[in-house]
C-alpha cells in the first residue's frame, strides 16, 4: 500500500486548499462588504472609505427598515408562510409521490406524464389569477399556501427516492398487517428523511423568497416581508430618476445592504443544519440505489 503523504499529494492538496479558500473568500466578501456598508456612516460611504469594516458605526439603515409600518407583522407572515407552506407541501408531495412510486398502480404512467406535462406548460398569469380568485382564495392566506403545495420537480425527486427503498421492507410490513397509510407514515417517511429535508429546504427557500404571489393574491396586511423589502430596495433606487424625497438617496446603498442582510440571514442560519441532508438527499434522489 502506498503512503498517502507523498510529495505530489501534498502539493495537490495544498493547491486544492488554496483554491477552496479563494472560492470561499469570493463568496463571503460581497456579504461582508454589504454588512460593513449597512453598518457604516453615510458620509463614509459617500466619500468611498468603506471596505470590509464598518466606518463610523451607524444603525440608521436597520432602524429605517424596522420602523417601516407593518415590518414585523410582515416578517411574521413570511415565517407563517414558510413553515405552513413547507409542511403542507411536504405532506401533499409525500401523499402524491408514494402511489406514483408504485409502478404496479393502474394509471401511474398517465399521471406521471401529466405531472411532467404541467411542469413544462402552465396556464400563465391571468388564467392562474382567475382560477385562484374563482376558488375564493384571493385575500386569504391560503392563496399563498395551497397553489404551491405540490411542485413537480420536488415530486419527481421524492418519487425516485421512494422507488429506491427496497420493496421487501414494505412487503414484510404488509405481511405483518400494516396498511398502506401506516407503511407510508411509519416506514417510508422515516426512511426518506434526507429527501424530505432536501425538498423541505427547497420549498422553504421558495416560500421565504416569494413576493410575487403575495403581491397579486393578498391584501396589504397579509403581505410577506419580501414584498416590503423589495419596495425598499426598488423605492430607493428609483429616487435617482424621480423628483422629490431624495435626501435619502445618499444612504440608499446602506439601506439596500441592510435589506439584503435582514432578508437572507434566517435562511443562511438554517442552512448548515440541513446541509448534510441536502447533499445526501440530492445524490440519493438522483442515483438509483
Amino acid at each position: 500500500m502506498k503512503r498517502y503523504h507523498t510529495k505530489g499529494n501534498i502539493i495537490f492538496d495544498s493547491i486544492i486548499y488554496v483554491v477552496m479558500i479563494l472560492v470561499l473568500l469570493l463568496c463571503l466578501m460581497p456579504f461582508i462588504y454589504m454588512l460593513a456598508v449597512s453598518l457604516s456612516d453615510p458620509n463614509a460611504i459617500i466619500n468611498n472609505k468603506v471596505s470590509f469594516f464598518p466606518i463610523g458605526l451607524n444603525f440608521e439603515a436597520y432602524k429605517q427598515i424596522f420602523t417601516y409600518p407593518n415590518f414585523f407583522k410582515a416578517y411574521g407572515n413570511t415565517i407563517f408562510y414558510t413553515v405552513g407552506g413547507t409542511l403542507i407541501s411536504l405532506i401533499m408531495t409525500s401523499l402524491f409521490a408514494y402511489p406514483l412510486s408504485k409502478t404496479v398502480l393502474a394509471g401511474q404512467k398517465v399521471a406521471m406524464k401529466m405531472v411532467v406535462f404541467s411542469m413544462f406548460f402552465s396556464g400563465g398569469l391571468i388564467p392562474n389569477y382567475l382560477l385562484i380568485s374563482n376558488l375564493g382564495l384571493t385575500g386569504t392566506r391560503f392563496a399563498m399556501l395551497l397553489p404551491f403545495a405540490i411542485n413537480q420537480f420536488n415530486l419527481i425527486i421524492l418519487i425516485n427516492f421512494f422507488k429506491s427503498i427496497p420493496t421487501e421492507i414494505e412487503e414484510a410490513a404488509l405481511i405483518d398487517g400494516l396498511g398502506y397509510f401506516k407503511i407510508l407514515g411509519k416506514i417510508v417517511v422515516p426512511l426518506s428523511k434526507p429527501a424530505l429535508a432536501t425538498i423541505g429546504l427547497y420549498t422553504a427557500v421558495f416560500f421565504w423568497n416569494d413576493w410575487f404571489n403575495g403581491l397579486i393574491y393578498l391584501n396589504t396586511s397579509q403581505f410577506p416581508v419580501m414584498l416590503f423589502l423589495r419596495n425598499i430596495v426598488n423605492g430607493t433606487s428609483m429616487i435617482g430618476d424621480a423628483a422629490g424625497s431624495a435626501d435619502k438617496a445618499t444612504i440608499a446603498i446602506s439601506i439596500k445592504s441592510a435589506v439584503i442582510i435582514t432578508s437572507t440571514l434566517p435562511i443562511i442560519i438554517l442552512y448548515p443544519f440541513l446541509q448534510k441532508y441536502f447533499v445526501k438527499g440530492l445524490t440519493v434522489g438522483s442515483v438509483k440505489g
Partner: protein
Amino acid sequence: MKKLLSLVLMMTMVMSLLSACGQEETPEVNKATVSESSKSSETTETENQDPVKIRIYYSDNATLPFKDDWLTVTEAEKMFNVDFEFEVIPIADYATKVSLALNTGNNAPDVVLYQTTKGENASLALNGALVPISDYAEYTPNFNARVEEFGLQDVVDKLELADGKRYYMPSLFDIPFYDGGLILREDFLEAEGLEAPKTFDDLYVILKAYKAKNPDSYPLTILAGPRVLYRMTMPSYGISVGKNGASGTNTLSWDYEKQEYFPGAISEGYKEYISYLAKLYAEGLLDPEMAEPIDGDLWSQKMATGKAMATYAYYDQIGGLTGASTIDGFKLQMYPSLEGTAGAHHQPKSKTGSGIMFPAATAKRDDFERVVKTIDQVFFSEEGAKLWCLGVEGVTYTMEDGKIKYADELVNSAEGVYKSLQINYGCGSDVTQMVWINEREMTKYDENYARINGEVAAMGDVIQTIPPTPMFDDLTAEDAGVLQTPLFDTFEVWADAFITGKKSVETDWDAYVEEMKTLRIDEFCKIYNDNLGN
C-alpha cells in the same frame, strides 16, 4: 386508453366550468341602470348617512411609506364622510397589480389612484375595463371647476382616447415647477471669481477652469442616465428627443411655432448640440461614464469627493450631498436653464399628471354616484386640495394675513417643511395630491428654491408644454413602431460615436443623416403629423 379518454374529458369539463366562472364576472358598464339606481339613492339621501365605503389602490414609495393613521387620511375620512380601505401596493409592482385587477375584473378596487391611460390602460379602457369618467361630468363639479380655473380644458381634452372619452381624472398643475436643472458648485465660482452661468459657453468656461485646477476630475457628470441630461438641455437647442420630449418618439421633435413634428435627430439644432457635448468629452470635461446608468450613490460619491462639480439633477437632491461632503465650503446651487442656440429652455412639462381611475365594476355599485362625488370632493375641492397639500389648519399650519405659516415643529425640523409634512402627515404625496398650485407649493421650500423658480418664471417660456400625442389606431401604431425601433437604435449608436469622438460631427454628419433617411425618418415624422387629430 378508456381511462385516459375519461380523464381528458373530465379535465375539459373542469376547464370550461372555470372559464365560464371567469366570463360571468366580466364587467360591463351599463350607464342606464347606473343613473337609475343612483337617482333612487339620491332621493333617499339623508344627512346622517353612513360613511361611504371605498376600496382604493395606493402606490407606495419606500421613501414615503403609507400610514393609515396619517392626519390627512383620518381627516379626509371625517371631512367627507367616507371610510377608505387603502390597499397599499409597492410602487415597483403597482402597474402589475392594477393590470391584473383590470384585466380580470376580479377583486378590482372601487378606485385606482396614480394611473394614466397611457400604454396598456388605454386598450383596457377601450375594451370596457374602466369607467369613461368624462361621461359623468355632472358628478365631478370640483374637478371641472379646477380645470377651468387653471385653463386646462384643452390639455384635459387631449387625454381622451380614440373613442372621444376620457377614462381618468388627472392631477392638475397651474404652473409646472422648475424642480431640477443645472446644479454646480457655487463655492468654486466664488473662489475663482466666476459669474453664474447664463449660456452653455459660460458653462464650458467654468468646467474648463475646474478641470485646470483638478486635472483628475471630470467636471460635468450626470445622474441616472444620459437621458436626464438630454431632456434637460436639448430644448435650449430647439430639439427634444427625450422621454418628456416628443411623446416618446425618441427621434422627432416638436416645432412650437409651426405646431408640428420635425425630424429633430437630424436637424441643425441637434448637430450643434452633439458638437457641444463632443467638445466637452474631448477635453475631459464630461464624465466618460455618462453612457452608463449612474445611480444615486455613485453620483453622490463623485459630487461629494470633488471628482465632479456640475450635474443635471433635482433640487432636493442637493441637501443630502452638502451635508455629506468633507470638502471645506462645499456649496451646491441650482441655476436657471442655460441659453443655447434656441434660447433658454427646460424639459417640457405637462400640466396634468397621474390621477384617479374607476374600474368598470365600480359603476355597478348602487351608490356609484355618491362614490364619484365623494372622490371628486376629497381630492379636487378646495378643502380637500388644502388638506392633501398643507394638512389641517391649526395643526400643521396657520393663516396669518392670508399667508401660510407652518407650525414651529415643521419649520425647525432637520428634514425641512416639505419632507416633514410628507412623512409625518401624508401631505404632498404624488399619489393623493391632485391639485398643485405653484405659489402654495413654494411656501414649503427654502427661499433659494422659490427665488430660482421666480427667476425661471420671469424668463418667459422656459418650460414649454408637452407636444400633443397623436391618436393612432392599432395599424398606424404598429407602422410607427416598426419605423421607430431601428431609427432609435441607429440614433443611439451615432450619438455615442459622436460624443466619444469615434465619429466626427464635422466629417461624418452627412453619412449619419443619410442613414437616418434610409431608415425613413421623414415618413415616420409624417405619420405623426398626419395623426395629430385636430
